[in-house]
């Protein structure tokens, strides 16, 4: 994975500390051109991987990328699925059965109930595969080296102990898309233990990692211990803790941790993108030669 990954929260009015900022972002990125321009700022800062949810509007961005192959020949997208609000809204409108009918192609209910209860959980895995395919459609022809499961699903499955699904996701994206599976979580130490338990070694896990311990369930120390002693390809997100830590201090902390392979951040302005990338490179250079 690249050292720096560019995120998409700012494009979809996701702001963890201010509804006003969220509304301002919603206005700023009303048009797809504004998103594309910001992605180009990231590329100018030598950030060539975009990690994004499978929001409907991403389909338009994908069209643009496909239509400009020279410009984006080195560009990667890491899809994060599912975009939960899309399904939550569909369930409100259509109910659970209606939602599955809408998003899963074919007559799934025929298959699902044919075999009776004994086959139910197996068929849920095939529903999952069909839903992954549905979410992946928009990325056809684009490099997608890592495909992520969103934290709302990862953590729900983790909490319920349904590790079979995590394992099935891991295997399916490798088999069908020749991609690696990534897991987004707010409970990283717990997830790693569970994944190791089903034989998934050195997984890609994206989680909040920041100096103040924000959204690091189980505690910051537990995270630091995992990074020092276990095999994991960690991606740090929320390194600024939604703005609670000044950028320099935040980056210094994360760059000083072992096993953090990548840092994920999102920003709206050219200046902020360049400045964050510059700080990461600055502190990375200081780490060269440091042994853990």
């Amino acid at each position: 994975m690249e050292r720096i990954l560019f995120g998409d929260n700012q494009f979809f009015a996701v702001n963890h500390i201010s509804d006003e900022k969220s509304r301002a972002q919603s206005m700023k990125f009303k048009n797809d051109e504004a998103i594309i321009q910001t992605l180009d700022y990231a590329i100018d800062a030598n950030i060539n991987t975009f990690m994004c949810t499978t929001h409907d509007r991403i389909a338009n961005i994908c069209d643009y990328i496909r239509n400009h192959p020279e410009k984006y020949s080195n560009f990667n997208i890491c899809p994060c699925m599912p975009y939960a609000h899309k399904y939550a809204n569909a369930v409100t409108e259509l109910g659970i059965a209606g939602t599955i009918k809408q998003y899963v192609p074919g007559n799934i209910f025929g298959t699902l109930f044919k075999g009776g209860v004994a086959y139910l959980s197996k068929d849920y895995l095939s529903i999952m595969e069909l839903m992954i395919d549905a979410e992946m459609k928009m990325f056809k022809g684009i490099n997608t080296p890592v495909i992520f499961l969103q934290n709302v699903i990862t953590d729900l499955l983790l909490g319920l102990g349904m590790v079979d699904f995590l394992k099935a996701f891991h295997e399916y994206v490798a088999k069908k898309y020749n991609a690696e599976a990534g897991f987004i979580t707010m409970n990283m130490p717990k997830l790693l233990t569970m994944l190791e338990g089903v034989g998934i070694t050195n997984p890609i896990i994206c989680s909040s990692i920041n100096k103040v311990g924000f959204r690091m369930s189980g505690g910051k120390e537990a995270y630091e211990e995992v990074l020092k002693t276990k095999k994991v390809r960690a991606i740090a997100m929320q390194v600024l803790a939604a703005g609670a830590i000044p950028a320099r201090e935040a980056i210094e902390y994360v760059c000083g941790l072992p096993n953090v392979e990548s840092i994920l951040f999102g920003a709206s302005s050219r200046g902020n993108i360049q400045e964050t990338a510059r700080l990461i490179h600055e502190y990375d250079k200081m780490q060269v030669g440091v042994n853990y």
Partner: protein
Amino acid sequence: MGYHNKFIGTFQEVKRILDEGHLGEVFHFTGESYGPVVIRAKQETWRSDPSEGGGCLMDYASHVIDLINYILGPIAKVNGSNLKSFYSRNVEDAVFSLLELENKVSGVLSVNWSDETYRKMSTSLTILGSKGKIISDANELKVYFKESETPAGYTKGWNVKYITDLTEPVDFYLRGEEYSSQIDYFINAVQGKVPNSINNFESAWLTDRVISLIKNSVNN
């Protein structure tokens, strides 16, 4: 009773500021919640069936009512309400009411679940007092103090605090610290480790009573 707003750090801080009297005499409040639940005429689900708890009053406004009861004191009187249906046939999509607390403080309730300019449910409280003003939602707390006599960590004029500074970490996170805190509190209350004072039957009854006062205050 699953009123999760009481476990959100910003609202807990609002309660602390009020309970310690830092806002002085409360003059007026506004409780609001907006979100994109029903944004066009659509197929019927449980949300459009009042007998299953559907409707903006029971599903959405109840959370704001409960939060007002908790932070400011029980609502005792409703001086008139508009229940509006924009898209739904059997239930209301918005609730607008004039409220009055037991101590005669007045307030406005404005709740609408058919507002697609919000990405998800957004609840906020604005409270005006003799010593200042509070505007708070689940992410951000803005407090204005008229004088330099303030609680620790605040100064005269505007103060802004973020949820990141006001959230206690939880052991397991799923879609918001408040949900984990709420479940932890419930289990601790069952085990007698904490006083059963948040979200008990009495507070739920007080909220239900306001829901019925609102229904009765609609002048057709």
